[in-house]
Structure formats: structure tokens, C-alpha cells
């Protein structure tokens, strides 16, 4: 019972200590075995593996269809609307964007009959985004949504990134109120997640902290800010001049800056642990990419 005795001694010494008053020096012999480092090393290894995308570098057909939709058909609609729809073009465009961005994703996603686990992951991430947006309600523009969406895109691919983003935009407005801005927000969040997924798969974006933060900043400032400022301009006025565009971007810049720094902040503190957690879930429950 030698071990037991040493445990008793230890407890007396450990619990008996008071913070300020110094007890008599009692050194515990250090065992020869160092701290369980191989275990730490193993975890680090897992993380290293992750950094290099194991994924195939080739894009799937579905992804191509989505890219064409987003990069060709949507700008085409915007052009068409501005050219032909007269005064009401911006509403035409915003509706066009809802239809075009969502149709391919819906078709693809619904068409392949997603598994229960996929649904759960998307729902959880979207719920985290919504709860995050609600939790920081007192700080305008300081939201973790974009960070969550980017992480979703990096870990679960472009499609999931888009769906999480769009879902956050849609559901959070059930709590904050729907309006003409809903489709724009859904699209902006979605496209940020989508691009994060694509860039990661192509190997252009690594899951390292600095890279994610840079992407997060650029995406929030230029994609989210760019789209949302444009949308408010279109809502207010239908005569678009360089001056009015510039004016709206300048007035929007401080808000976008706060939003972008929030994204950077959240990615800086949370991206690594969050990605680790998601990777563990993927491994543990066989959710590795299809």
C-alpha cells in the first residue's frame, strides 16, 4: 500500500496549502518519465495531415455546374436587369439571385438524398452561426457568422459552406425579421462559404490561421460588404452613378471594417480548435468526404 500512502501525503500537502502562506518546502520526486508527449505529438500529427488537403484536386461535375451558375448566369441576369428592367431592375436582380443561386444547390443537394449525418452537421453549424449572431446582438456588425461559414466551407466542402451560409442568413432573419435584405444576405454568406470550400480544395487556401484570417478579412470586406452595400444602394435609388457607388461604399466602409475585424478575431481564436473538433467528428463517425 505504498502508493496509497504517498497519495495520502500528497493530498494533505496539496489541499492543506493556502495560497498566500508558504508551507514548508516539500518537493515531490519527479518520475523519470516525461509528460506524455507522444500523445501530444500524435495530435499534432493529425493536425499536420489536415493542413495538406487530402482531397482530390479535381472538381466534381456538380461543382462545375454550380460555378457556371454563379460566375456566368448570375452576372448575366444582373446585366439583363440593369439593361431592360427600367426603374425596377434591382428587385428583378435580387429575385434573380435568389432563384439562380439556390436552384442548383437545392437540386444537387436534394437530388443526392443526403444522409442523416450530413443534415445534422449542416444544421449544427448553421445553428451555431445563428446563435452566434444572436449572442452578439449588442455589438452591431461584430458577428461570428462569416467565420463559422468559412470554417464550414473548409471542413465540409464548397456545397456545405454555401448551404450553411444561406441557412444562417435565412433562419437568423426569422429571429431578427425578414426583409428585402434576406436574399442578399443569404447569397453573401453562402458565396463566402462556397469560395472557401473551392479555394481549400484547390489548395489555394490552407487551414492555417494566417491564411484563414486573410481570406476572412477579404471575404467579409469585399464580398459581404461589397454585395450588401450594393444592395442598399439599389434599394434606395435606381440611378447608379460612379459617385453614388463610391459614396455608399465610403459610408459603409467603417461598418464593413468592424465586421471584417470581427471575422478575423473569431477566425484567429476559434479556427484551430473548431477545425480540430470538426475533423475529430469526421473521423470518429466516418463522415469523410464522399
Amino acid at each position, binding site marked *: 500500500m505504498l502508493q496509497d500512502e*504517498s497519495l495520502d501525503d500528497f493530498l494533505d500537502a*496539496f489541499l492543506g496549502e493556502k495560497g498566500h502562506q508558504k508551507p514548508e518546502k516539500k518537493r*515531490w520526486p519527479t518520475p523519470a518519465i516525461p509528460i506524455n508527449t507522444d*500523445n501530444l505529438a500524435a*495530435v499534432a500529427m493529425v493536425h499536420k495531415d489536415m493542413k495538406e488537403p487530402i482531397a482530390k484536386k479535381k472538381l466534381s461535375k456538380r461543382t462545375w455546374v454550380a460555378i457556371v451558375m454563379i460566375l456566368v448566369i448570375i452576372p448575366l441576369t444582373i446585366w439583363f436587369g440593369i439593361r431592360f428592367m427600367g426603374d425596377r431592375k434591382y428587385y428583378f436582380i435580387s429575385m434573380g439571385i435568389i432563384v439562380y443561386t439556390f436552384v442548383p444547390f437545392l437540386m444537387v443537394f436534394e437530388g443526392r438524398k443526403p444522409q442523416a449525418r450530413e443534415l445534422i452537421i449542416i444544421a449544427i453549424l448553421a445553428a451555431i452561426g445563428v446563435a452566434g449572431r444572436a449572442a452578439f446582438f449588442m455589438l452591431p456588425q461584430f458577428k461570428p457568422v462569416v467565420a463559422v461559414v468559412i470554417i464550414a466551407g473548409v471542413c465540409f466542402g464548397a456545397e456545405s459552406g454555401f448551404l450553411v451560409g444561406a441557412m444562417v442568413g435565412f433562419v437568423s432573419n426569422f429571429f431578427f425579421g425578414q426583409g428585402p435584405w434576406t436574399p442578399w444576405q443569404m447569397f453573401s454568406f453562402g458565396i463566402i462559404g462556397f469560395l472557401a470550400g473551392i479555394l481549400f480544395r484547390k489548395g489555394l487556401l490552407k487551414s492555417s490561421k494566417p491564411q484563414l484570417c486573410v481570406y476572412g478579412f477579404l471575404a467579409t470586406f469585399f464580398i459581404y460588404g461589397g454585395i450588401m452595400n450594393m444592395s442598399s444602394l439599389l434599394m434606395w435609388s435606381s440611378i447608379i452613378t460612379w459617385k453614388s457607388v463610391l459614396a455608399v461604399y465610403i459610408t459603409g466602409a467603417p461598418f464593413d471594417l468592424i465586421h471584417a475585424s470581427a471575422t478575423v478575431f473569431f477566425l484567429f481564436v476559434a479556427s484551430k480548435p473548431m477545425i480540430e473538433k470538426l475533423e*475529430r467528428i469526421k473521423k470518429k463517425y466516418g463522415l469523410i468526404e464522399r
Partner: protein
Amino acid sequence: MALKDISLSIAEGDFVVICGKSGCGKSTLLRHFKSVLTPHGKRSGEILFNDKPLEEADLRTQSQEIGYVLQSPENQIVTDKVWHELAFGLESLGYDTPTIRLRVAEMASYFGIQAWFKRNVTELSGGQKQLLNLASIMAMHPSVLILDEPTSQLDPIAASDFLETVKKINRDLGTTIIMTEHRLEDILPVADRVMVMDEGEIIAGGTPREIGKQLRGLGHDMFLSMPAPMQIFAGVESDLACPLTVREGRKWMSAYLQGNDVKKTKIPLEKPEIESDETVVELKDVWFRYDKNFPDVVKDLSLRVKKGEFYCLVGGNGTGKTTSLSLISGLNKPYRGKVLINGKDVRKLSDKELFHGMLGILPQNPQSLFVKKTVELDLYEMIGGTKEKKNSVYDSDIEKKTAVDKIAQLLHIEHLFAQHPYDLSGGEQQRLALAKIMMLKPTILLLDEPTKGLDNHFKRELGGILRKLQEHGVTIIMVSHDIEFCALFGDVCGLFFDGNIVTSNTPRAFFSGNSFYTTAANRMSRHVFENAITVKDVITCCRMNL
């Protein structure tokens, strides 16, 4: 190997209970009864369902015919509305709206769900949630119902309600039931068959009474998980049939002692072991309510806990036990009266003084403490990381490594260092949480329902650990529904009712003074012996009188 050489057959309409220690493979076995839930791995042997291999039954048949209720009431719910949840399985099976409407209406009526049919699921209590899970499975009209420790997260009243419903399903509808359960005293009397598992094998199987005999023969420690009457039966030599309930137990006692001259009928009440007169926690005429417009939750509560004492607060739901605990910890503040810790007003102590080296509070859900990806890192996390350097949260002269190793040894978790906290079993998670709390060197421990969801084996282990801490001067205040645990390990028990402690005493005096709110062993033996409150007491008394 999770399962070894298991052979069993279950007839239609049977009520089968599978029991065993945590980690004995019962959940793994249950999961083999439904293909979609079967864990990955290698399996040899065959599983037959209706005389055909289970794999041959397609997913549709399996989904419909084999219902599966899991452990956590909260996690099983998928949708946001009660009615939608009820319809979920039927939607999967592709029924049309009129059929689903009928089935859902039937289920809502049978389970008494009408009143909260249109609610959001978040508004339901734990018991209601688990009932909803059961109802949404039953809506698919399964012929087999599998339940994996369905009551472990419920309070005693909700748990026995739930088990009553399960019994009713078996009795009224003839549904075959296969379940694992810790709360055997409620379920064994109606079980047709019981399987006892250990280390992946079935070590005993048969009717509950046969099990009693078999286990006595084996001398296996699984016996500690059986209901008190069966434990007493096992501890005593007799030729009588094994009693299952307290009622049968009383009869058995009378029959057993018949003809013997019962001389020794009383266990002397022990004097409270006063090791010190030092009062550590004191509540003086404390009143508390959550809001100005709400009723009082704690009313004129006075309480004194001495150094090194193990104080148990027992009592029903919503009587204010947990609230009192939060008053002691300073999370809530009384509007009248005083809370003194080590003679100082809790309100005047800083968080650092209070929570580092003084108070340790174990939350009900241990998972709310886990931060890191391994047990070891999680322990270091409490004291500011693995670097051997003193900081504001760790000012001990003992090396961090020594402290972590010793605490882990104390709580029997040193073999789990490399694991992820969420991969541990419930009992292990509980011990890890306690270990994390112990890293802050508390001298007073506040525990809220620490035995919830634990089997008897883990309870004993926890009890032993708490004893050890007590020996080193740690004071423990525990809130619990588990009177058997309090009787075994407590120094003082207090009955909480309507915001106040009605009576408090040493466990022996306390429980023998109550007639309803007491241990099964006491209820079974009180007509013959006085003051026998634990199984061990009763066995000792029986042996002494032969």
C-alpha cells in the same frame, strides 16, 4: 473484443432486461439488433429476426418493426415541434397525410400528449421529452421495442412514470421489449427474462428469481446492482424463493425468521462522529427568490456544516435543494439572511478567494467542464497549461505534473490520459470533472446529483473517492435523489421540503425515522429490525439471529 460468444433467443411479447456494469457491452449488444445502428467492426455469428437473418430484412422493415429508444431525452429529438417529432418516423416510411394524422392522434391520446401537442419541444421537461421519444417510435407500430438506459437522465418520479408506460405497452399491445436499465427495482418484477452481462459475455440468464439464485452461486459483484431484496437474499443462506419487490421481501423476511427466536433486533444509533467543532459552512435564516414577483424558493433556511462532514440534502423535485447549493456558492444571493463560509460572508469573498482553494462545485452535467482534446490536457488546463511555472491559478510548490498524476490516481482516471473526454463513459466523465475541480484544491465540495445516470458499481467507486477526500479534511455537501447512496456514504442527511430543511440527522436515525422516504432495505426490514438501513445492516442482522 466487445462481445464474446453471445447466444440468446427472445420470443414474441417477451419483456427482457439486460443488465451489467457500464462498459460490459450491453449497449453494443442492443445496437446489433438494428443494422443502421450497429457499430463498425468485425462480427462473426448470426442474428435472426423472425427466423431470417437480420441483414435480409430491408431497412424499411427494420425501421418499422424494430423501435429503438436511446439514452438522452434531449439528443434524440430532431425537429422543433412536438407534432412534427411524432410524425417523423412515419414521414420516413412514406405514409400519406391522413394515415399519419390518424397515427399521430392515436399516439398523442395513448401517451397523454394532447395538452402539449402543438408546443415547441424546448418547452418540455426531461420526462416529457423521453415520453415523446417513446411515442414517436411507437407511432411506427414496431413489434420489438429496444430501450437503452432510457431513464438514466430522468429524476426518480419521471423515471418510474416512464417505466410504467413501457410496462403498459408490453401489457396492452404485446410489443416485445428488450431494455437495459439501472433502475432494476422498478422493472425486474415485470420482466420475463433477465440477462446479466460482464465483459462482453452473458454470465447469467433466466427469470428474475433464477437470476437471484444463479448470481448467489457465482458470487459475482454484479449483485451489487440488483434490487435490495435480492441483495439481501443473496447475502443470507435460505431455501426460500428469491424476493423481487419490497412486498415480497417483507414476506420473505418473516418466513425466513419464523421459528427463530429474534433476539437482536436493534442496531445502536451511532453518535455523530465529531472530528472537529469547526463550522465551515453556515446559513443563517436565509430567504431567496429568483425575482421580486416570484414566490420564495428558499424560506428561512438555517444550516451548519462542520469540517470534514459529508452532508446530504435529499428531497423531491423543485423543493429548492439545488437553489440552496447555488446560495452557498454565491451564484445566487439571498435577499435576507447570511451565508458564511469559513466564518466569512460569501458576498465579501472575491471569486479568486472563493473558487481557488475554498469551494469546488461539480456541475450536474460534467460535459460542461471539458475543454481540451485529451483527459491529460484537460487536467492541465485547469492550472494554466503544461508549463511548469507558477501562475495566478497555480501557486503550489508541488510540480504540476505530480499534482495532475496524483489527482488522476485518486480519481482512478490515470489510464484514460490519452483519451478524448467525450469518449469516456458517464462514470468516467463524472470522475474527470471531479478531478478538474480538485485541481483547484477545494476544501469544500458542492455536488449536485453526482450519481445521476451511474450504475451501482460507479456509485461505489465515487463513494470511495469521496470518503478518501473526507479523510483529508474536505467537507462535502451533496444534493441527491439517491437515498441509497446517501445512506451508505453520508454523515448527516437533511430532508428538504418547501424551501427548508424539515429534519436532519445521521443517516441511520434519519432513515429509520422516515417510513416512506427511506431505503428499500429499511422498508423491507423495519417490521423486524430497528435502524437497519443498508443491505449490509439487514444481512448482518439476519446472520446474527440465526
